[in-house]
């Protein structure tokens, strides 16, 4: 029996207790999960509004705590927790974004029919996915990264099935099989990493031996992150799953796991760049790899989106293209790049939330499931149609919306990075990204085109309620989009001078 140093163990435990305060919001989140679990015992049919309200309260409280944490980290900089997590401003910003997005998704889900039966279980899974995403952006250890990614994934697999239809079952099966293979490959990469560096913590030591194998492992690891980001070549699951899942869940998928995947990718890219692990055959670097994948994602996402007839599928492909933009921001790895990424992430979240909210509204109020069904919606629902138009324009990246500004920032950081590193692939990426905004026009404007320029199929359906609560909420989002175009520094100022470690 090996002797155990009780004294040092006591010190360790004391340290753990003091660190408790830094993960207070996460504790609250976990207790929220437990509360939701208890709520599942109540009859769901009657209590779904009550349960949702309680969970919303928890989420708001968590968001407030994150607000305090933001101020705190703004002052103190980076903090490492047990070598597992790291707390810094960028992570807290994203955590706040995730929490608010989840709150919006909870609101959006109120009309979901399956909620009449499983409200508690639904909320448990949603909060678990949120918790996983929150841990993802903070993780600074391979084990923690793996666990948090799996946490998001497993909750997502189950959530996909929540529409309780044939389609959603199929989507869930595809998602879990694909996800398991992707995470298996990632895990293999992690094991190689561990073997060659002897450490699971970030800030890998440089190795004297086996750089090739290490790079191999890095690429496999990247695969797992790309799976969460839904970028080429690990994008294939996204359209099927987006189509299969209930619309509010799809909104969640398109925002939280994706941006969390982006954060993890940024974390590791920094290490790759520092140790320059992928610098192997000549001038190929991690930038080249990321830029190539970005170009492919842009092309694949945009081109495939063109003939889609299911709006959710269309947005899935558009999400793949947006992953390309995120990857482009990562490839242009600089302070400016990170800031523009954060900006892009926030704008992307707002745009997608608004888009899916409107899709959901069109689905339950007018039974619209295909793009053709949008015909003549402008006559029935002029205000909703106007909002839809603005959101689509924003997704395309045209002025006067913040979608334009966000893309502009990414372009600028790419240009900046090209000027500093002189890697021609970045210039190519810039050119492709520009051309792709042009291609994006073809499909994003398809929906407004049907809404405005095609006659209505029948006049039977009721007129729109003048201003529903959903419209008000979406209007707030749209106002954000417009406002941030005119005053992007309102958001950018938050990111300026903040501590970024990633």
């Amino acid at each position, binding site marked *: 029996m090996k002797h155990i140093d009780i004294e040092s163990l006591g010190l360790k435990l004391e340290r753990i207790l003091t660190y408790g305060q830094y993960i207070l919001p996460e504790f609250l989140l976990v207790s929220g999960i437990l509360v939701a679990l208890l709520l599942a015992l109540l009859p769901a049919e009657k209590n779904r509004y009550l349960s949702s309200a309680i969970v919303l309260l928890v989420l708001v409280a968590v968001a407030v705590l994150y607000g305090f944490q933001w101020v705190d980290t703004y002052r103190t900089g980076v903090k490492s927790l047990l070598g597992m997590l790291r707390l810094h401003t960028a992570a807290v910003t994203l955590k706040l974004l995730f929490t608010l997005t989840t709150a919006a998704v909870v609101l959006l889900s109120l009309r979901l029919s399956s909620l*009449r039966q499983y409200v508690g279980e639904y909320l448990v899974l949603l909060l678990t996915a949120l918790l996983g995403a929150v841990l993802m952006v903070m993780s600074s250890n391979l084990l923690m990264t793996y666990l*948090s990614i799996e946490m998001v994934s497993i909750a997502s697999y189950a959530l996909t099935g929540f529409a309780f239809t044939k389609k959603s079952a199929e989507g869930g099966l595809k998602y879990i099989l694909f996800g398991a293979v992707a995470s298996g490959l990632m895990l293999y990469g992690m094991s190689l990493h561990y073997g060659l560096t*002897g450490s699971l913590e970030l800030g890998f030591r440089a190795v004297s031996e086996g750089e*090739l194998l290490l790079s191999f492992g890095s690429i496999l690891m990247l695969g797992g992150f790309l799976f969460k980001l839904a970028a080429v070549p690990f994008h294939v699951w996204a359209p099927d799953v987006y189509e299969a899942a209930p619309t509010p869940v799809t909104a969640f998928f398109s925002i939280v796991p994706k941006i969390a995947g982006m954060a993890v990718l940024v974390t590791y890219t920094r290490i790759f760049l520092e140790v320059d692990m992928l610098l192997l055959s000549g001038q190929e670097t991690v930038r080249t790899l990321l830029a190539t994948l970005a170009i492919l994602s842009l092309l694949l996402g945009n081109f495939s989106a063109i003939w889609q007839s299911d709006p959710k599928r269309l947005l899935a492909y558009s999400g793949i293209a947006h992953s390309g933009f995120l990857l482009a921001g990562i490839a242009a790895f600089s302070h400016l790049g990170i800031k523009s990424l954060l900006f892009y992430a926030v704008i992307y979240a707002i745009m997608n939330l608004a888009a899916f909210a409107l899709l959901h509204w069109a689905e339950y109020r007018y039974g619209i499931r295909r793009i053709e069904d949008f015909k003549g919606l402008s006559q029935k629902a002029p205000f909703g149609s106007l909002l839809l138009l603005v959101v689509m324009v924003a997704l395309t990246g045209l002025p006067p919306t913040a979608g334009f500004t966000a893309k502009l920032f990414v372009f600028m950081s790419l240009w900046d990075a090209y000027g500093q590193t002189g890697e021609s692939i970045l210039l190519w990426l810039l050119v492709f990204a520009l051309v792709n905004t042009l291609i994006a026009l073809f499909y994003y404007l398809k929906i407004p085109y049907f809404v405005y320029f095609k006659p209505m199929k029948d006049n039977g359906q009721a007129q729109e309620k003048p201003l529903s609560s959903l419209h008000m909420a979406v209007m707030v989002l749209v106002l954000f989009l417009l406002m941030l175009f005119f005053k992007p520094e309102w958001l950018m100022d938050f990111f300026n001078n903040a501590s970024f470690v990633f």
Partner: protein
Amino acid sequence: MELYLFYVFAALALVSALVIIFTKNVLYAAFALVLTLLCIAAVYVYAMAPFIAVIQIIVYIGGVLVLMIFGMMLTNRLSNKSLLTEHHYIPQGLVLTTALFVLIYKALSGVNFSGLSWMKEGFAPAEDNIQQIGVYLMSDYILPFEVAAVLLLSALIGALVLSQRKERYP
């Protein structure tokens, strides 16, 4: 002696894994998997991780595989026929996985692991490290431990909801 026994177990693991590929009978595949996992547990023992080996046997063979066999029974109409499965994408799959293996092998063959800086420290772990694992789980690894707990909980909830037979609101 130790080395030869290792070879035997490794070979057995590989052969039974290959059996999963070649057999069409799903049930045979499951038993081949049991064998593979058992052999892997033995390999863990040779890698000085007896605790992990035990966990492997308890969780995998005792839990996961039983679950799988249940799944098999539930998803196949039990008739006179034995449970068969078919193959597809054989050429593409073979080419790609072989390519991957060759690539890994090439990357591996260049590495002299004993030359790695962190391994030179020459550490030989104790045969029995259950206590060490326990202490780590409750101190340094307390965060992952808790996270795993939440993960298991919600996975169970998810599985529970999804396996409900009927829903009132389709």
